[in-house]
């Protein structure tokens, strides 16, 4: 769904409830650029595949790169889920690398090496099943997985952290030749909730250095989304990311995907 500068989507099955939103930041509104954050997710059986991507503002087609990457990776992972079985997580590295390779292949033009660079984008993604999952990440943004542990939601998370260059405004993209060196995986056990976000969100949804979620933001958001009908929740999430208080922290575009296992995954 799209309403002006806000994109949102919600879905629920017996295995996963998922809500995602992306909004344009004031820095892109000012210069008339579209939202360059993108997200996608899919639920197949017991499995969830999701990705949040942030297109580089300096790249001519960064926003397109982010969209192609998010949808391409989720499509590829969904195909792997449908073809795979119990051993899916054993070969997650190869599956994700294959997905990125495929998206790069769709964009690449041997006659023009600049085409790939024009699509610079970061990636934060997840492949998760009933017994655990794995985050994968290139560049900045962050992700957190909340283990099934009763009431103490989000307090003992597994976190996927950003990788920046020496300078805070430098990061890594799937379009770089050495992208494999910057593709990081973080495994986690069975979880009740998980969240993926772009760097426009991590400034307030994560603590300093992205060591853990900032519960002042994430706890009320997660509680609300758990109780809301998915599409309504997605709209409320978009409104939250588009709040002036969020834009005061970061003028960048913002994207977040939240997911939970209904009833804590039945555990």
């Amino acid at each position, binding site marked *: 769904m799209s309403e002006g500068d806000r994109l949102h989507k919600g879905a629920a099955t017996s295995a996963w409830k998922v809500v995602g939103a992306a909004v344009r930041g004031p820095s892109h509104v000012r210069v008339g650029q579209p939202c360059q954050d993108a997200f996608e997710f899919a639920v197949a059986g017991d499995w969830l595949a999701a990705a949040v991507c942030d297109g580089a503002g300096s790249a001519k087609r960064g926003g397109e790169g982010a969209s192609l990457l998010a949808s391409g990776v989720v499509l590829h992972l969904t195909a792997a889920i449908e073809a795979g079985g119990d051993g899916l997580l054993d070969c997650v590295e190869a599956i994700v690398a294959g997905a990125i390779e495929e998206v790069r292949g769709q964009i690449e033009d041997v006659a023009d090496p600049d085409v790939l660079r024009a699509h610079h984008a970061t990636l934060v993604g997840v492949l998760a099943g009933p017994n655990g999952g794995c985050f994968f990440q290139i560049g900045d943004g962050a992700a957190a997985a909340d283990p099934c542990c009763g009431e103490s939601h989000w307090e003992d998370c597994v976190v996927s952290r950003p990788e920046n260059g020496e300078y*805070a*405004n430098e990061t890594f993209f799937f379009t770089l030749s050495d992208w494999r060196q910057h593709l990081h995986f973080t495994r986690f056990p069975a979880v009740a909730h998980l969240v993926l976000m772009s760097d426009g969100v991590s*400034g307030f949804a994560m603590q300093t250095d992205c060591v853990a979620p900032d519960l*002042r933001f994430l706890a*009320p958001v997660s509680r609300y989304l758990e109780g809301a009908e998915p599409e*309504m929740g997605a709209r409320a999430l978009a409104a*939250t990311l588009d709040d002036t208080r969020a834009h005061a922290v*970061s003028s960048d575009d913002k994207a977040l995907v939240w997911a939970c296992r209904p009833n804590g995954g039945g555990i």
Partner: protein
Amino acid sequence: MNDDTLIADAPIPGAEFYENTNQRTPCVLVLDGSGSMQDNGKIDQLNRGLQVFETALKEDKSARTRVQVLVIRLGDNDDVEVLSDWGDAINFFAPTVQANGRTPLGKAVDLALRKIEEQKGVYKSNSIPYTRPWLFLMSDGEPTDRDWEAAADRCRQAEQEKKVVVWPIGVEGADVAKLGRFNQPGAPVHTLSAANFRDLFVWLSGSLAKVTQSQPGQAVQIAAPPTMTIPT
């Protein structure tokens, strides 16, 4: 529009937004305090410009907590001194630069590069993210220290290795070619007259504020202020 629509399009209740980034943008001002800065009231204009810089930085919500400033003066008997050590812009008070003596620009640049590397070490050991430091050289005269050319080469090298962004500014009457030695070959040396100091510092604070808001992968578009000229 029903009630559900209204609720869904409002932010989620209870969500709080605390800024968790502690990013810094270091900026060193190397200012010429040699005797020739007395001419045409240049030193007074420079000091007024510094005060404008202080005010403008403090007025910017992002810059005042993210920009860190260090001021170095050169002059006297080929001496350099730190007039104002590293500190957040919110705590920066414009020092008063005295004009007296010679122009040891090489020595001042060496000190600036050393202070920048020291500060990077502080950031790294405290896990503080930072953007590329800015080194601002402002002089109206010719360097007088013996080894200034070697220092200029070190500065040029540091810029080439992306350790720093160098901005040489020639104040009226400056030897632009010599100032240009401190930057990449062919890179512009901006020049300005004493009357434009205020504009320069307004531009500097605004540009630094932009850098503090820059996002990964986003090139920051910084244009010279209209009152500065770029010699061709």
